């Protein structure tokens, strides 16, 4: 059987935690990493009698995501209750959306090695997150714990769920989709979108069809990084192909990806599927976004990653990869463009940002966008270098200090006395001193051994404690050597 007879269809369900200041239905802070159960109130704890009130900012963020993906905003959306018992869900129902989601349709275009690929979006809706269950004990495994601890800090945090159509045709494309969506979210500024912290969570459905027949949908969970996503889907794709090749049938089920073994294991069969008994949430009113507001939101959308990559590449003569690096690193493109606007050369601005700057950020564990570096400061630094006022090594030191202290390069250069020696008269004095001290080398130079000049430049540089401008120093030495010869 040839591999070409198989057809893989993948659909993704992506949960995005919104970075609003407060939770979806109450005014508790929406923050990661606080001590357990310190960000709670009667509403997000589902205390008897408490009622939800929709956070307008969360609605705005969800709409921005919808608009950025070209989705259609529903004139009237409803919240529904999704009923099931789980201890980390305070009300034993989740306020979510069902048959009238906030947005429908839309798409995301991926840049694959084979060209552009458009993946359709099924729906985008808003819902509340659950708390977290912790199973104490050495193994952390549910069945070995004798009790469980519940942390409701996350309960009620706003989530946007993006559901794709099953139009993704490979594990790599799935990875690309999530990576691209992540960049859109970051560009919109609506989420931290960190898979490792759970602010971006991906569930996937994968089916492998054979000989034109539809495959059986298998849900794969526990995909905690882009790498896990691709590995899990690759494993699952292979597993299904092997079953089909052996004439077997794939079972419709939910499978769990095991990071360590790189395999998926069965979690539950379809027969065990829950009946969520959805019904309209009576404690909330229908959401009917004002068309004028939608228009304003659409008009205020930022440039999206794909457009920005294309623009940066063509405007500044960068390669696709270079543009992609600027766009995918939060804040980097802004620094870059600001620097160029302040007069920096695009090429050197890119080189400094992609090399020295990212290296320093990495070493210091700082997000590039939060490093404090401005395009204006970078342009100033590059001007020093261009003018020859400081050398490359010094420029790197200055950049490090800029990140360290947040001060501007002018101040640092002046305070450290880093400014290169460019006074020609002074450099000539320096050159005379060197020529006097090395008469033999001076003679050889004049005799035509011009290579010896670099030795003399080195000696003069040492005398200047490295501060002399190398080009001017060379010029001064040449003049002194030639002039003396003429005397």
């Amino acid at each position, binding site marked *: 059987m040839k591999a070409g007879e198989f057809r893989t269809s993948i659909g993704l369900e992506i949960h995005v935690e919104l970075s609003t200041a407060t939770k979806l239905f109450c005014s508790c802070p929406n923050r990661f990493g606080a001590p357990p159960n310190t960000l709670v109130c009667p509403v997000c704890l589902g205390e008897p009698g408490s009622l939800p*009130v929709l956070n307008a900012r969360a609605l705005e963020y969800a709409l921005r995501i919808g608009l950025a993906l070209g989705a259609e905003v529903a004139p009237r959306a409803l919240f529904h209750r999704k009923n099931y018992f789980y201890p980390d869900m305070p009300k034993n129902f989740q306020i979510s959306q069902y048959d009238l989601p906030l947005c429908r349709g839309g798409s995301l275009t991926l840049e694959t090695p084979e060209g552009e690929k458009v993946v359709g979006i099924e729906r985008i809706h808003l819902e509340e997150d659950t708390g977290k269950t912790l199973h104490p004990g050495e193994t952390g495994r549910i069945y070995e714990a004798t009790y469980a601890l519940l942390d409701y800090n996350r309960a009620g945090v706003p989530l946007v769920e993006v559901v794709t159509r099953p139009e993704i045709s490979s594990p790599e494309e799935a990875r690309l989709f999530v990576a691209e969506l992540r960049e859109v979210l970051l560009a919109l500024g609506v989420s931290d979108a960190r898979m490792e912290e759970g602010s971006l969570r991906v569930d996937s459905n994968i089916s492998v069809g054979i000989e034109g027949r539809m495959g059986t949908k298998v849900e794969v969970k526990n995909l905690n990084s882009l790498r896990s996503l691709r590995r899990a889907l690759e494993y699952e794709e292979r597993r299904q192909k092997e079953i089909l090749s052996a004439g077997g049938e794939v079972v419709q089920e939910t499978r769990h990806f095991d990071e360590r073994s790189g395999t998926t294991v069965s979690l539950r069969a379809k027969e065990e599927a829950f009946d969520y008994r959805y019904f309209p949430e*009576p404690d909330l*009113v229908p959401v009917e976004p004002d068309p004028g507001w939608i228009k304003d939101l659409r008009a205020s959308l930022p440039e999206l990653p794909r457009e920005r990559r294309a623009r940066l590449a063509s405007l500044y003569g960068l390669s696709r990869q270079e543009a992609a690096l600027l766009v995918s690193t939060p804040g980097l493109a802004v620094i870059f463009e600001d620097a160029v606007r302040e007069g920096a050369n695009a090429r050197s601005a890119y080189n400094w940002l992609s090399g020295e700057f990212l290296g320093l950020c990495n070493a210091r564990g700082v997000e590039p966008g939060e490093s404090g570096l401005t395009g204006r400061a970078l342009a100033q630094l590059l001007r020093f270098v261009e003018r020859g006022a400081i050398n490359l090594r010094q420029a790197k030191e200055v950049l490090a200090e800029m990140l360290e202290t947040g001060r501007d390069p002018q101040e640092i250069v002046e305070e450290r006395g880093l400014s290169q020696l460019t006074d020609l008269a002074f450099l000539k004095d320096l050159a005379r001193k060197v020529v006097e001290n090395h008469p033999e080398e001076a003679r050889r130079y004049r005799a035509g051994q011009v290579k010896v000049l670099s030795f003399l430049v080195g000696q003069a540089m040492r005398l200047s404690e490295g501060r002399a401008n190398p080009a001017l120093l060379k010029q001064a030495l040449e003049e002194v050597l030639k002039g003396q010869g003429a005397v």
Partner: protein
Amino acid sequence: MNRGSLHRMRAWELSRLLARGEVSSREVVEAFLARIEEAEPEVRAFITLTPDLALSQAARVDEARARGENLHPLAGIPVAVKDVICTDGVRTTCASRILENFVPPYDATVVRRLREVGTPLLGKTNMDEFAMGSSTENSAFHPTMNPWDLERVPGGSSGGSAAAVAAGEAPLALGSDTGGSIRQPAALCGIVGLKPTYGLVSRYGLVAFASSLDQIGPMAGCVMDVALLLSVIAGHDPMDSTSAPLPAPDYLSSLEEGVEGVRFGLVREFMGEGIQRGVRRAVEAAAEGLARAGAQVEEVSLPALEYALPAYYIIAPAEASSNLARYDGVRWGLRAEGSRDVVEMQMRTRAKGFGPEVKRRILLGTFALSAGYYEAWYGQAQRVRTLVAEEFRRAYERVELLLSPTSPTTAFRLGERSEDPLAMYLSDVCTIPSNLAGAPAVSVPCGLAEEDGLPVGLQILGPPFSEPLILRAARAIEDLFPGARPAPLGGGVRPVPLSGGEGV
């Protein structure tokens, strides 16, 4: 003056005495506490009493008055609150084992407003468990007796609040009404009870039974007191998304304007079969009285109301099955110990913590929402709901207000219907339509039934936000039936001499 008779007075009368400095709030509260001590062993209207809290709140009001502060007319006049409304630091049980020891960490919006006005809290009143029932017999703790006849039920689910007012244990009370739970006990106990328009009074802090139907409302011995209490609790609350974003109107200024020229419609469907003869006669007499007072009264037919009861018994249990899911032993309330895992703990807690009627409704509601049944049950019930609202709307094109009995019968005997859920459900046949339509309705006493001498309630229904007109009509009924104004001592409660009072 005779301080021993303070508990027989209306809130508005007490308000005058307080304003003139003839009595202190402390004396008023003490009078009601004494009356509670006297009547409570027989009436059993309360689940929790809060005398210390009431006295300290009264003391604060007295101090404020002494300082010459501008006080609300109800400042210093005590209230009883149905035990389904959250009170910060005061146990709120919903008359259920599952919340027997639940102490809310916050006040319901209505309770906060009462505290701000300065109405001392006497205690939390008995009710059917989670407000499910029409007799208060479904309380997990004890039944409440009707002060008119201790062998009879006070109605429900706000039976404790109604009995407390009827017995003179409290001048004012809050109830909640999902299908008639304020109006039916008000009728059976011979007091006034109003279910406001859905969204007029904040539900924040009202433990939910059926969120789209629940509404908190005032209960008192007379229409004026109901209007006074309503003006404290009504008005927009940003904590309740379903709260109407409107300013609460003035309910008092038009109260005495009478009914001349007002067009009433007597609902034919609620005057026939299944309505006790004495109830029908009393309601007819009330309608005739209104006509004599200058109103126009005609008969109207609203055939869709026939379907209101079955639709209600789909929608209310469906919402309840979801609202009551949170009582699982994980966070608060009862927890069944000794379970092997969390699922067993949740199941055992719920098996142990909920009474039979609550379980029945959770099962009904869970079924109605199940995959494959949703459209046939819940979907259909919602369509009936729309139909009922539409039929009311059309009726209000012809008449301004509608009239009907509040309850098909007067107070029934304890145990009489507790084995027959359907008979019990029929107690609310006249009151349920207003909840489905989200419209207001009041029950006001209109005399005693000829065959048993028990109070009959006239229900006056109106379109959404017609409370001022409804209350004005109810006030006119009071004048037509002066004899029907409730006797706080009731039929069966022996008047016991008060101790410690300054009886003259």
